């Protein structure tokens, strides 16, 4: 188990931006009856989500989120030492989208920039990488951008994914600061279940061709093409409520973290059924588990920072908040972070 502790590092602020266009699940999906829609909304907790237009990419949402955060924190793009772009929906196959963002955000040429290809666990891994670049790599300020436009990956009539996935981009500023509480993390991977959440074609293993793009009935009974996102919901559910719960439980025991000493548990916004169950198993009362999925759906790697920004932006004073964060999913990849936010700056969620 990869376990790490970072010191003298602070998360200064987190911002989120979503597309203007809302999809209301009750009004959309003409192929489903009202009763079916209501039942699905009740279980998933997703009333509506945001869908980007064809010309808006995850990087555009992240760029705006970064600009909002720079302004609120009063920091100049020239002070950014590194840009990390976490996403599974990059602008191009290559180059790294982070390089394009260095220019668009007017950061210096001396900025280090690269992409990290992860989904639901992306914020955890992104924060780990940011902290590593500071503690081991000698940098002073990292801009972590987590965003995805997953609505571009699913097949329109696949209820499995099309009902819950939304688009969002976020920005997080991580700084050097002395005498702040440690940030503790644990990171996990199980590649044996890589096919439980996958877009099979379009890479080098199965290049996209006319035949992979054909919509047809797949072995699991669903209709989509091999170029579309495919999820084995039951296996992902079992993974989340067993492996993820076990990792969080062990982490809390080893780090001696008591439920009653924490203020918030921020979970990847998979769906309400799953996250409620994880919270229940860990004995967290639901008041300590903030949600954003009712408004924005499951936004992949953006979901944890979006939920944090959404939650804290509604408070007048934030002060010190002891939080646990856990991201889990595609990979399979998962992780947990124990962090104390101290007057973190979270602007109201923006729109593009």
């Amino acid at each position, binding site marked *: 188990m990869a376990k790490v502790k970072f010191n003298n590092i602070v998360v200064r602020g987190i911002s989120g931006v979503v597309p203007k266009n809302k999809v209301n699940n009750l009004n959309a999906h003409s192929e489903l009856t009202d009763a079916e829609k209501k*039942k*699905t909304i009740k*279980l998933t907790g997703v009333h509506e989500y945001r869908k980007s237009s064809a010309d808006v990419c995850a990087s555009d949402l992240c760029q705006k989120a970064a600009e909002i955060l720079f302004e609120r924190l009063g920091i100049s793009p020239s002070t950014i030492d590194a840009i990390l772009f976490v996403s599974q929906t990059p602008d191009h196959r290559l180059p790294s989208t982070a390089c394009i963002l260095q220019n668009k955000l007017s950061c210096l040429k001396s900025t280090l920039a690269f992409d990290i290809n992860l989904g639901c666990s992306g914020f955890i891994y992104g924060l780990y990488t940011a902290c590593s670049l500071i503690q081991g790599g000698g940098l002073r300020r990292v801009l972590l951008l987590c965003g995805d436009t997953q609505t571009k990956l699913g097949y329109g009539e696949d209820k*499995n994914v099309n009902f819950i996935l939304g688009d969002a981009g976020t920005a997080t500023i991580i700084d050097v600061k002395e005498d702040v509480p440690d940030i503790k993390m644990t990171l996990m991977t199980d590649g044996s279940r890589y096919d439980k959440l996958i877009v099979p074609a379009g890479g080098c293993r199965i290049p996209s061709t006319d035949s992979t793009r054909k919509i047809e009935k797949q072995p699991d009974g669903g209709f989509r093409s091999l170029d579309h996102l495919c999820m084995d919901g*039951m*296996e992902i*559910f*079992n993974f989340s*409520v067993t492996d993820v719960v076990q990792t969080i439980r062990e982490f809390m025991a080893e780090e001696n973290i008591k439920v009653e000493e924490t203020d918030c548990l921020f979970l990847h916004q998979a769906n309400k*059924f799953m996250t409620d169950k994880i919270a229940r198993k860990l004995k967290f009362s639901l008041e300590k588990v903030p949600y954003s999925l009712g408004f924005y759906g499951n936004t992949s790697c953006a979901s944890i920072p979006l939920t944090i920004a959404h939650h804290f932006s509604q408070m007048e004073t934030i002060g010190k908040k002891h939080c646990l964060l856990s991201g889990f999913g595609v990979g399979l990849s998962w992780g947990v972070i124990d962090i104390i936010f101290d007057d973190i700056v979270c602007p109201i969620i923006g729109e593009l």
Partner: protein
Amino acid sequence: MEDSFIEWFSEILESENPVSLEDVLADIEEWDSLAALSLISMVDDEYGIIMGSKDVKKMVIVRDILDFIKNSME
């Protein structure tokens, strides 16, 4: 156990019609992927047993679920 099983399985389905052990799952209108998730969750809560998607796909009639639980408890 059979009676309580039928009771909570009916709750999962939110079915207006009574469910019997011999009903074919595929013929139950309310039996869909979300109901299957609820089932997996409930079996975990009630019995501490984890059902995989392969286990669920093998089940044909309602009694198969009950048999799976009984066999797992042994």
